[in-house]
């Protein structure tokens, strides 16, 4: 059962007591690592879904709350779903949690990564509708601070961007396509940039909604998430709320400008894109801690880790690939970095398992 016992039979070379890596296991490339991170978030979701409170009627009430403020075509299926879960909480919650567990393990198991990612898109969209009420985007109260457009839709977006497929022309002497960042491998750089632009521009738009730019809106949002949280985490939100009290409009404007800059960040040269993406990651982390209190996980009733980790994962998927000794900006930078990306990521195809695994 030990690590050495697991692997040494096939890989320990004579005289090398430390060669424990299994033969034929290609080290995960950048995209595979991001896929595994996405799978890890699904697994965390599954474990959270197995929490005791999820087997009670409180879960159905949680679902029903997502219908509030939504138009009828959205809210009716949500209420039907909540009613059904309320009648069979144990059976349905077990099913939900097990589905998420299988999605996670399917992503981790290389031969099933494609069906698992495909199923995760379907599941995420269904949960986004029936569990999150489309993230509240149609209610007029969606806010990036509270996790709009809904954490679960980000799972679907990531599954699409990390789909194990290579699109685009191949660079000379390389096995993979020429892409400036990992997210462009599956859908191409223009489509990936468009998706990023839509996401972050929509967040900027949500930040400027009337409900969010009211003087006390952000203050109320931050104070509303502290219930049941540990004292240290609640105090962070409380301090943030005190700082933003009566400054809702100014804070919303600053937030919207930041989000808009982030939205165009991936269209900039890599030397400018990196700091923009770093700001995006820091902002996502700040919102996750102060605005979402880590998704409410520490209260014992959180169903997911919130949007912060997913946005950070998205940032990593768009992070320009660094090239040593090459230009880091300008028109040739994308091509140069793409070549570097291929050199790093083509190693997955060198191993015997790669052909049927990731790429």
């Amino acid at each position, binding site marked *: 059962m030990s690590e050495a016992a697991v692997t040494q039979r096939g*890989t320990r070379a004579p005289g090398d007591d430390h*060669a424990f890596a299994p033969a034929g296991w290609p*080290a995960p490339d950048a995209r*595979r690592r991001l896929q595994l991170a996405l799978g890890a978030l699904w*697994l965390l979701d599954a*474990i959270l879904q197995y929490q005791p409170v999820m087997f009670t009627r409180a879960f159905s009430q949680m679902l029903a709350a997502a219908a509030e403020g939504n138009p009828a075509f959205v809210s009716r299926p949500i209420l039907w779903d909540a009613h059904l879960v309320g009648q069979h909480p144990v059976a349905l919650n077990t099913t939900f949690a097990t589905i998420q567990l299988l999605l996670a393990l399917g992503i*981790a198991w290389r031969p099933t990564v494609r069906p698992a990612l495909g199923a995760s898109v379907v599941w995420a969209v269904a949960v986004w509708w029936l569990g999150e009420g489309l993230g509240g985007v149609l209610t007029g109260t969606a806010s990036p601070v509270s996790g709009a457009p809904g954490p679960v839709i980000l799972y679907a977006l990531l599954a699409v961007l990390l789909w194990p497929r290579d699109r685009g022309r191949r660079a000379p002497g390389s096995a993979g396509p020429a892409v400036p960042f990992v997210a462009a491998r599956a859908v191409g750089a223009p489509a990936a940039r468009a998706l990023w632009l839509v996401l972050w521009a929509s967040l900027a738009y949500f930040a400027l909604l009337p409900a969010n730019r009211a003087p006390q809106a952000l203050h109320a949002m931050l104070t509303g998430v502290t219930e049941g949280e540990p004292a240290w985490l609640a105090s962070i939100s409380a301090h943030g709320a005190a700082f933003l009290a009566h400054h809702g409009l100014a804070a919303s404007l600053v937030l919207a400008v930041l989000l808009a800059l982030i939205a165009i960040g991936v269209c900039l040269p890599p030397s400018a894109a990196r700091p923009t993406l770093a700001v995006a990651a820091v902002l996502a982390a700040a919102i996750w801690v102060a605005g979402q209190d880590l998704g409410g996980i520490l209260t014992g009733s959180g169903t997911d880790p919130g949007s912060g980790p997913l946005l950070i994962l998205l940032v990593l998927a768009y992070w320009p690939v660094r090239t040593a000794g090459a230009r880091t900006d300008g028109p040739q930078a994308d091509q140069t970095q793409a070549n570097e990306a291929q050199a790093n990521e083509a190693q997955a195809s060198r191993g015997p398992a790669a052909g049927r695994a990731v790429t």
Partner: protein
Amino acid sequence: MTGPFWLAGVLAALMIATAAYCATRLIIARVHRRPDERDVDLVHTVMGVAMAGMLVSWLNPLPNPVWAVMFSAGTAWFGWRAWHDRRSRAVRDAAATRPTGRASQPHHVPHLVMCGAMVYMLLAVGAVTSATHPGTIMGSPATVGRFPLLALILAVFMVAYVMWQADRLPALARVNSARPAPAPALALASVPSAGGQAMQAYEATLDPPSGQRRWGMLSRRLVGRDNMPPPLAHRLMSPRLAACCQIAMAVTMGYMLILML
């Protein structure tokens, strides 16, 4: 909260099966003098029993403080192993012209963290339940522990470990495809490169064990004749099965840690 109770029972059964499997590996390793890390198998055997007892209280054969002491010793042991690995790797890297890659590192850190997580859970649950609900099982409201952030960090580690292990499963299956040949010389001659090394390492474990008689008929049936392990032992030592058990243990531990929140 009926859900967690039956869920705890299912997970406890899984942990007992895992513990039994690890114990079987220990027996096979001893009889065949395999160079496996028996300390890890031993700790996981104990860990499986302890986790089952934490999930379902009537399965717990020992009081929590005893378990805590045992896993504290395990933490210290694997801490020393991890430090020793790191030190030997540094020495080897200094001597080598090319540094060894991360993929070739032995991994005692996960076992270290798992032992540490057990100590945390035992102490945190014990501190709460001893004063409120003696005999309370995991998943009940009284098991909410102290330092929830630590529980969350440990749970995230378990989740990451599960993904890392599951990602390697296909490769582990290929490693297991190496079959023992009747004669070591024939096996080594017929399997090239990495396969040959694999076979060499495997054959080195198949010497006739001098202490086999001590294990009696049961172990003789399990491990088979000298120099040729039977299919049952071969399957039980499957790397993929071992990794699956580690995954099950890490998932269960992650669940137990989340219950501490």
